């Protein structure tokens, strides 16, 4: 059974590229365009991994991460944060809130694929 991945990002073109990459790797992919939609999808689909953008409308990635981590039902879910804001403080903040990994945009597709594979291993 293939692993489920949720892509949460408000940039349409980024979603298209990441979705293409993940599907090519054989994952089952769902998409959310903002923070609230992301939480909805997480509860509905219970994905194995979330690729979570930080700067999203309605609810930012940090808040989403925090809410997910507060719910023990999602303890096993992996979270990889993707952000265009690459400052050290933000990386640290994301990891402190319970993210499993952090990648800065623009990222190398190979590294992204490797990282996802590693997290789902």
């Amino acid at each position: 059974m293939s692993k489920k991945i949720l892509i949460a990002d408000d940039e349409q073109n980024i979603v298209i590229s990441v979705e293409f990459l993940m599907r090519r790797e054989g994952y089952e992919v769902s998409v959310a365009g903002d923070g609230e939609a992301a939480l909805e999808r997480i509860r509905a689909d219970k994905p194995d991994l979330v690729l979570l953008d930080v700067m999203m409308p309605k609810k930012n990635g940090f808040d989403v991460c925090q809410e997910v981590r507060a719910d023990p039902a999602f303890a096993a879910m992996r979270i990889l944060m993707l952000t265009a804001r690459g400052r050290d403080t933000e990386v640290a903040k994301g990891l402190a809130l319970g993210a499993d990994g952090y990648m800065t945009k623009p990222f190398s597709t190979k590294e992204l694929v490797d990282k996802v594979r590693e997290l789902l291993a």
Partner: protein
Amino acid sequence: MLQGSVVVVASALYLALLFAVAYWGDKRADAGRSVIANPTIYALSMAVYCTTWTYYGSVGRASAMGVGFLPIYLGPTLVMALGGFLLLKMIRTAKANRITSIADFIASRYGKSQLLGGLVTIIAVIGIVPYISLQLKAVASSYDLIVGYPVLKAVTGGGEPVLADTTFWIALILAAFTILFGTRHLDATERHEGMVAAVALESVVKLAAFGAVGLFVTYSLYDGIGDLFARALADPGLQKLMTVSADGSYSTWFSLTFLAGLAILFLPRQFQVTVVENVSEAHLKRAIWLFPLYLFLINLFVLPIALGGLLRFAGEGINADTFVLTLPMSAGHELLALFVFVGGLSAATGMVIVETIALSTMVCNDLVMPLLLRTRALALHAERDLSWLLLAIRRGAILVILLLGYLYFRLAGDAYALVGIGLISFSAVAQFAPAMIGGMYWRGGTRDGALAGLLAGFLVWTYTLLLPSFSKSGWLPANFVSDGPFGIELLKPHQLFGLSGLDDISHCLFWSFAANIGAYVVVSLLRAPTAAEASQATQFVDALKTSRPVGSALWRGSADAGELVALVGRFLGPARAETAFAAYARRHQLVDIGRAEADADLVHYAESLLAGAIGSASARAMVASVAKEEPLSLAEVMNILDEASQLRTYSRELERKSKELEAATAELKAANDRLLELDRLKDDFMASVSHELRTPLTSIRAFSEILRDDPKTALQDRERFLGIIVSETERLTRLVNQILDMAKIESGNAEWLVEDVDLRAVVEQSVAATSQLFRDRDVALTLDLADALPVLRADRDRMMQVVINLLSNAVKFAPPVAGRVDVRLWHGDGQLHVSVTDNGPGIRAEDQKVIFERFRQGGDAMTSKPTGTGLGLPISRKIVEYFGGRLWVESTPGQGASFIFSLPLPTTGRETGE
């Protein structure tokens, strides 16, 4: 009538009570629990100003002149209300210099001159003796009246032998009493706590007694104030008393008020209670209203009693000065009369005690001691302990002064009413004013100037007031006053040099002050102050400034400490000298004070101890006799004073600098905060720019890698991905352009091509440029553009940039179905207005400001992120503001948004100029 024995016993009991209070006050002071450390007692002790002259004389004066008795109390009230700073300066100066009397004050100010102290003492004694005799006369006549009533015996200074004269015995009793009060021991600061306590009590008693008569006359003999005044008004003889209308009365009012104001400052007894006996400067605060209140209260019933007496005794020829006593006596109220007598006794004893103590201190310190010390034997080799001598001199002086008072009474006592005599004394002490006030505020005053002024004023006073009073008493021929000496009209004492139209007091005041002030100023200006005068002048003039040079800074020489201790011991008594020096040693942590070489500080201390006992001038002379002094030159003194004043300036400067520094620090902190804020804003901006650039790059990189890594990507995907890469690249380009644009505008480096712009054409061209967008999205566009508009001065391309930005925003947010955008252009208020309105979702109130900030889109309200850089509106606003206009949004969520900008038209002046 009252039995003489009853009156004598009552008086004796009252005096015994006073003595008990004084004794208790002294005991408490010795125990360190002062009873007079109380502002109310201080204010009450000032009421020693109210003598029998007030007590009996005010009614007399009111009977003759109506409200004319008031200036004597107005003057002090004004001085207390307005002259607090003067009193404060006198008190502080006197304390700093251990001043013991007004003679000491003046002598000390002008270089510790013994000559000046002596002159002031002589003037004071000659001026005050008649005043003391007035008290004796008042007590004696009130006694005779109360005992002899209704037989009214005139108290005259003739007739019976001295030993059978009541007045003589009263003088002796008061002398004994004063000696007991004032000279039981010699105090270093000449303070008499017990005496002050007793005087305060006396002030209460005399006020109560006078108030009692007042109430009795007003409410028992008559039916209240209204009744009394109504009856008086009905009597044509009394009517005039209630107006101020006598000829020349304004000059009289002025000069009496002025004289009384000076008297409250410079009468020896007032100086004693106000300055010498002052415990704390803070007490002055209450005294400046409480003392005037006391004066007001004691004057409240003067006019009613006078009117009552005049009405009751009309035609009986009773002396109005006695109304206070004769009114209760005539009504048969003997106990009240006795109380009134005791009140009068209070007024007299209070004045006599304080005045003679003050005078005896002056006579001893400034007259007798300097003379005695000149005889070498006494000064240097006589008995070790001279303190008994000081006490003996003072006691002798008290006795002599009172006997002089009696003598004046015997010789001249009946010539004047009470008030007349009092005013002669006031005029005498007023002569101290130029030297005192000048000394406290003018550094240029010299000893010679003060001597000349005092002598000139005193001589004029003698000629215009004292000699005429002798003439009235028959010592001098009567035509001395009426025709002038030797018949020389110009020298008539009451119309000197032809000055007429003034009463004799105003006349004396005018000429004596002219002579006094003139001589003081002119002679002072003849030479520069000497070193001693200059150093004292600084101490007095700068008394209220914080860092004065202490006296020790102005002394140079060498002295043997043992000799100093012995010297002080001779005048204060060895025991008290030991105690005083032991205290000094403790303060300065010296082991054996007697063996050391004395430094300037110790010499100064010894001198100030001596000054308290024998006056500053004698103390200076005595210290000089045991110390080897190197006199300072004027230049050196000026140097020291200069240094001190430089120090003062320097410390003020420092204070100012430190305030400036504080202000500068605060400013720096604010600036730093602003910088930090700017820094934070810049950081945010950089982070935003970075984010905005990275986002399209992410897609571009991802798709490029996908296409590179997998050449077999389906053609359909490949085309789609390449399309995305191209559009993201365009977005990136747009973004970079706008960031650069923004940066240029913000840094002021943008190029503006300012020309005449037809805004209507600009709007139309912008619409044309964006028409494809409208067609693509199927959004309806309506235009409502006014015709014949004036031209703007602006940059055409920039204006187009703004309108296109607004149009593309509007079309972006217009709904996909039935979207519409309205554009309006109109003219009003000297401005052109453009509005671009869509029927999109609208903008929440909290976002309406945010959307004009860089990289801030009102995105949260919308389900999908709006496309665009987040710089369009900020740049548009900058452009509009550059041309003096305004860009804002009006919107209700759900009902679309309206972006409006207004631009001012050029002024007409400029239009015609071109």
